[in-house]
């Protein structure tokens, strides 16, 4: 066993209001530079929808992530497109790399014209100009171009997670004026079996030993772009100006000083949780070698119980500090993922073992209507799951590699918690009924209370349990902080400019 610590995350989708505050908080700090204008290390997608870059989930085109190869007993994980040999040919031209068209051409407006235009009959306008060429341009796409456009035949219908839905289910989903949708904020998952790291020809990508943050060393990156295709979540972006790739850094400079990452701190819906998970690095890739539907369970077998004295001993032997172990014990992530089992990884079938988990949204399910009226008749309480407007099948495609049982388990539990609290407050449900529901939902009053507390009324310290990273003794991966104090940017030792 090789116990490691991972700073991991939970996003509670029921609480996300799709305000994009997180995206802006991130952009203003990290990607407001030339070459990075189009990057959204954090973005929020409307689902069903095609996302950013367009149709990023279509791995038959982008070929990201791992593939399970080989026969029983000798299963192997192979990168879907970037195996060692074809990586060399793809250095010259990579057919799986998304181009600017798949994102959007960044632009600004010619504001100066508002002040400087000659006097005339017409109101002066600020026309859009490209941030790349500086030429006037037509805006044809932008970040969140299909925001709130669920139901549109132009965008949402192309969502590949809808593939398996019947016509009837689709119709229901996209019914005019009763469209249901959800928001999916995405950052890099800081995977435990990252395909981006494995694909990098220059070896510029690495996972930090202490906290599992996945980073690109800008000094080592040679712009081969293999990681961009290899990351199935398309969370690595190519800086067209510097000729290097960039990705979410989980605000590590903030984390290291005990602060909360920008997108987490700014989140209006307070949907985000951050904490330490202990996992067995030897099992990381191993646990991803099971059939799709077993992946969620399999991933959980790689996580370790931070209260188990054996684990604590091994963790310490492996150099994990007491502070980290303490953080792991207090971790909200451990509760959501392991204790309550209601937070699920996104698209685990890509087998990168993502370390960001989502509590699936309940509301669209509850929104199931009979003649347009919101019902919660208790006898069809759980049966409404089958007829929910955001079908289980769809959620299963997103969060459990198609395993509907897992989604159902989560949904039932979430509903049970909700009705438990309602019963306590409103006393409008009969206790026998409630007990039955709690049983079916697989929860107990104590657990339900706990889930409710952490979900609805947590303090900031409960949401973010940031371990002390002892920066004073860390030699930073690219440069010793003593030496590079005051140097610019993200740990690089020279200004990030383009070479000749």
């Amino acid at each position, binding site marked *: 066993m090789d116990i490691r610590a991972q700073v991991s995350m939970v996003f509670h989708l029921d609480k996300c209001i799709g305000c994009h505050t997180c995206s802006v908080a991130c952009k203003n700090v990290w990607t407001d530079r030339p070459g990075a204008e189009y990057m959204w290390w954090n973005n929020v997608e409307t689902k069903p929808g095609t996302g950013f870059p367009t149709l990023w989930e279509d791995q038959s085109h982008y070929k990201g992530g791992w593939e399970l190869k080989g026969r029983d007993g000798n299963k192997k994980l192979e990168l879907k497109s970037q195996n060692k040999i074809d990586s060399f040919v793809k250095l010259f031209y990579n057919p799986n790399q998304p181009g600017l068209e798949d994102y959007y051409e960044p632009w600004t407006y010619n504001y100066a014209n508002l002040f400087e235009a000659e006097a005339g009959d017409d109101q002066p306008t600020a026309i859009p100009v490209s941030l790349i*060429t500086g*030429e006037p341009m037509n805006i044809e796409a932008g970040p969140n171009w299909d925001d709130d456009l669920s139901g549109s035949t132009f965008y949402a219908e192309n969502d590949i997670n809808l593939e398996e839905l019947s016509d009837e289910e689709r119709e229901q989903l996209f019914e005019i004026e009763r469209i249901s949708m959800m928001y999916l904020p995405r950052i890099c998952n800081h995977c435990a079996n990252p395909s981006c790291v*494995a694909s990098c020809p220059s070896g510029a990508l690495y996972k930090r030993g202490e906290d599992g943050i996945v980073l690109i060393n800008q000094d*080592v990156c040679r712009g081969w772009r293999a990681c961009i295709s290899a990351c199935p979540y398309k969370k690595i972006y190519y800086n*067209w100006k510097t*000729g290097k790739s960039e990705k979410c850094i989980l605000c590590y400079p903030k984390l290291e000083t005990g602060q909360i990452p920008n997108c987490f701190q700014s989140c209006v819906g307070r949907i985000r949780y951050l904490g330490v998970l202990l996992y067995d690095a030897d099992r990381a890739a191993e646990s991803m070698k099971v059939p799709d539907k077993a992946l969620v369970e399999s991933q959980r077998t790689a996580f370790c119980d931070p209260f188990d004295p054996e684990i604590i001993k091994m963790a310490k032997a*492996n*150099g994990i500090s007491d502070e980290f172990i303490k953080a792991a014990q207090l971790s909200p992530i451990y509760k959501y993922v392991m204790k309550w089992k209601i937070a699920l990884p996104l698209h685990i079938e890509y087998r990168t073992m993502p370390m960001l988990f989502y509590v699936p949204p309940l509301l669209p399910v509850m929104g199931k209507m009979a003649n347009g009226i919101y019902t919660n008749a208790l006898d069809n309480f759980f049966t409404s799951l089958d007829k929910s407007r955001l079908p289980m099948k769809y959620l299963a495609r997103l969060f459990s590699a198609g395993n509907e049982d897992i989604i159902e388990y989560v949904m039932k539990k979430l509903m049970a918690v909700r009705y438990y609290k309602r019963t306590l407050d409103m006393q409008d449900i009969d206790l026998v009924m409630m007990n039955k529901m709690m049983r079916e939902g697989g929860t107990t009053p104590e657990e339900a209370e706990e889930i409710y507390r952490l979900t609805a009324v947590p303090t900031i310290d409960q949401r973010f349990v940031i371990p002390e990273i002892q920066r004073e003794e860390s030699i930073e991966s690219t440069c010793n902080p003593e030496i590079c104090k005051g140097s610019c940017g993200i740990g690089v030792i*020279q200004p990030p400019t383009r*070479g000749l």
Partner: protein
Amino acid sequence: MTNTLLFIVLPYLAVFACAFGSIYRIKKEPMSYSSLSSQFLENHGLLWGSLPWHLGILLILLAHILAFLFPSFWQTLTSNQVLLMAIEAIGFGLSILCLIGLVVLGIRRLTSPRIQAVTTPMDLLVIALLLAQVGLGAAIAVHCKWGSAWCSGTTTPYLWSLVLFQPDLSNIEDLPILVKAHIVCAWFFILIIPFSRLVHLFAVPIEYLFRPPQQVVWNNSRKLNEETPAFAKEETRRHFLNAFLGIGFGAFLLSVGTLSKVFSFFFGPRLSEKEETELMEVRLAHLESTVDQKKLELERQASKYIMVAPITELNPTAGKYFIDYKMQPAIAFKGKDGYPLLISAKCTHLGCTVGNKVDSEGRILCPCHVSYFNIETGQPNAEAPAKTPLGHLPWVIMDEQGKVMASRDNKGQTSCFVQPDALSAGKVYIAKSLEDKTT
């Protein structure tokens, strides 16, 4: 003077600048060290430009390097007619592929506004230089045929003379201007590597083939110093490896000559007294044999006649080699008229020894760069790199007593003083008196 500048000073300057410039850039300005791909901005043109260009140029460079590093191997390859043709044809095809790629890349750079946003003047210079260089290469393939064969007698020794710090221009001095331009262009190319995007040449990620898929880097120095998984020290090693691979090739070229000498001076084996005497003896023996040879040469030059062969031994299709007064090779045949036919065997192109087998068209072949010479007229074939004919040598036929039976002078005039049948008893000689006049 210009030659010295272009072919001796420039190369050393270029390699030196390339090695040190690249190391400096890789170490001190790693942020600028990138392939600077523009696929993100423009996809389609890149496919039709970058792929043909890179695949073509890589194979061509490989052939150049093989010819330089393993001259004898390369020579055996190219001495086979069929292989030679194949190599030439493939090479030409690849250079056309490269040219197409380059033109596409060039057009893309000049017409796409997005690409222009990331184009520096240096990028344009690089494309221009590459176009010129590949164009020259293709022109050489057309105008100075069989370059893959003649390089082993010309450019390869020149390059090795540079590597061994004994620059010797004699091998390339007489090369056509096209070839010289190609060489100079190549040196310029090496010179600008560290100052342009070409530095990405050194970034070829060879180590990717051997590294484990996942990389973990520990921040904490305590952990770093502990004996933990193999990746722990990866970081520093990787930096080192990168730089090492990057400059390895350049450094290799530079160091082969000097280092081995310096090394053997300090660390080479010391000789014992006995070994030293033995060495002296060997040297003495060498000297003596040289003296003998020189004596022999002198003697030959002093004697009036030099015997070639009894006339009966001459053959119309398989010539007999001999050495003339000027210590140059020549071949003796039996001519169509029954008289001896003596022809110089020193190729008028670059001086290789011409073969002695006559082909069906009455020609002999210089194997170095494929010139065919007609033995009757001495003329080379039209496509041959050799442009002037091989000379004929005058001869006399004498009997045992030293009586001249027949002779041919340096104008090709034959005179016979006996019955033609009687000639078969004679021996063929070249005569100094006659030969002198030919010069």
